[in-house]
């Protein structure tokens, strides 16, 4: 019975069917299934599958985004149940995401946020045009292990360095690790500004984030 439900859960994520995912999550509660099992044996299987397919070039960004959204919706239904049980889903880590000051591009960053939360990270997405003090302030406030910064413009990518320098000055590294991303961002740039890593796409960003928090 539950095996069949798990399969349907995974499938709802793969197909990006948010409504179905929510219904299945509710059904699992009615059936007294353990919410952690529902997540790990059901929904996460779907997220992992779509991530793998994306990596192979067989799934595309809209499918990835819709899967991420469906996953978030399902987890939102299950989280109160976990709390009731006094348990929590094993959290991968807390991340603050932002597009740097002067830059309003956020497609890539939002996608990374969706994938990170679908993969079990707690994500605070500050949005676009965020100055260093706001990004760092939020990271301290929520005790984040990771900061992810996006910049699409060559004129704004320098802001990533400013945030890293500020973190260093405050002695907040390596406690807080930094990932950088965006169209003009290369591995060389990430090394040059002493970031902890960069990734070409959202699936890679999840792998990188897991590595940086030691949960590979």
């Amino acid at each position, binding site marked *: 019975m539950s095996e069949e439900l798990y399969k349907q859960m995974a499938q709802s994520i793969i197909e990006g069917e948010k409504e179905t995912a929510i219904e299945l999550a509710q059904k699992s509660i009615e059936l007294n299934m353990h919410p952690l099992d529902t997540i790990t044996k059901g929904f996460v299987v779907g997220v992992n599958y779509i991530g793998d397919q994306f990596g192979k070039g067989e799934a595309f960004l809209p499918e990835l985004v819709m899967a991420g959204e469906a996953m978030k919706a399902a987890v939102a239904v299950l989280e109160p149940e976990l709390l009731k049980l006094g348990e929590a889903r094993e959290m991968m880590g807390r991340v603050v995401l932002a597009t740097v000051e002067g830059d309003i591009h956020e497609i890539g960053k939002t996608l990374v946020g969706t994938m990170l939360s679908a993969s079990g990270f707690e994500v605070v997405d500050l949005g676009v045009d965020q100055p260093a003090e706001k990004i760092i302030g939020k990271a301290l406030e929520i005790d984040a292990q990771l900061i992810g910064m996006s910049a699409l413009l*060559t004129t704004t990518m320098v802001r990533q360095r400013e945030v890293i320098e500020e973190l260093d000055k405050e002695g907040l590294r390596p406690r807080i690790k930094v990932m950088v991303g965006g*169209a003009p961002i290369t591995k060389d740039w990430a090394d040059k500004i002493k970031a902890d890593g960069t990734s070409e796409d959202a699936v890679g960003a999840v792998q990188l984030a897991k590595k940086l928090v030691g949960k590979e």
Partner: protein
Amino acid sequence: MQPKLTLLSDEVLPRIVDEAYQLMLKPGIKVQNAEARQLLAEAGAQVDEETFVVRIPEQIVKTALSTVPQKFHLYDYNGDPKVEYGGDMVQFDPGSSGVTILDPDTFEHKTTETHDLVKLIKVAEQIPQYDAQSTAVVCDDVPKDIHDLYRLYLVMLYSKKPIVTGAFTNTTVHHMIEMLAIFSGGLDNLREKPRAIFDVCPSPPLIWSNFGAGNLMTLARAGVPAEIVSMPLAGAAAPVTLLGAVTQHAAECLSGITIHQLAKPGSPIVWGGAPAIFDMRKGGTPMGAVETAMIDSSYAQVGKSLGLPTHAYLGTTESKVLDMQAGLESGMGALIGALSGINMISGSGMLDSLLCQSPEKLVIDAEGIAMAKRMLGGMMVHTETLATGFYDQNINFKGGDFLKQKITMQLFRKEQYLPTNIIDRDSIRGWKQSGGLDTFGRAKVRVKELLASYTKPELDPAKVNELHSFVLDLARKAGMDKLPEHDLSPQTA
């Protein structure tokens, strides 16, 4: 007869314009510049000062459209009109805002500095297919605060052609206008005979940022032409359908024109863009995709239906090297742009989705442009009879008969575009004898030749000094005591 590509039917085109007007009311346009919001409110638009969303009624836009010039020119250093915006004129300029340059020997994409931009200007200056220069790359060896105006400074020193440029802030656009005015002999002369046009970008979807709207108003008041570069990304920052993206483009441009004309009616502005489909695998913006070119062609058709001058980003590629992908995407883009009658087509020389410039690609792209322009010339009727008149008493039913005809000598240059040696039409033997080079190899040779044959433009030394002092002063304020060394000699690259 200029051949013409039109992708929009008579049925669809008015629907695009109609829905664009609807978008300006719902959801409205987000205008992040207070002064622009005020202008719009005074004209009768409904402004929400909390969300910055402005609902712009059709009538305000139509009034703005009625004052936009349908045609204007850009002038060269000497004050001669060289670029015509309006109608079906088709012209090209190198792509701009690159940050790297392709090293032709190592294939590295190197961060660009002063000497790289100078090299690109020298090459583009001597290629007739480039009707205008562009401020092609930013120079990493000067402070960020002067990145935009320093590019313009170098182009003004090394070129006499009209210039397609753009400012990065609301402050520097004033500086750049002043720089141009130094060479034009005052702001009035600059307005009379503008040397440059400034790209101004809305942010998809449907946003005019503080900086974008600010630039529009400043340029309008100075009477210096503005070129709207709207970039809907179909499937991410715009509807996934190509027609949806074209409609969003129209709404972004129409709202921009409205802000611009409210600041100063009658100032020149161009219906342009750099849209793209959104690549669903890599999240990139493929400028060389055929669908991207289809969006460009279609929005140009919309702009033309409104009587506006047009611009697009085409003739470029995602490829990282000068390979077949670069060639086929750039060539197809240039041809589609030309057949769409787009007044200014930017993008030549660029690789890697507008990030990387290449002088070698500039010389190769020039051949694609020349072919596209030949195509635009169409099938010409040069002679009274189409053929029969050629078959006179000297015809011996031999190949070569026509080579002996005087009319062949008279007309072959009109009928055929005669390519440079970038295009190989040699025999295998001849090709081997001349080094057996591929297109890229031949382009490297050609770039070296062009750098050697470059001669510095004769400019008024007093104006050059004034410009130099002006830029040096701004550089000092930005924390740089001395501008980077660059020489005006012909030999060095």
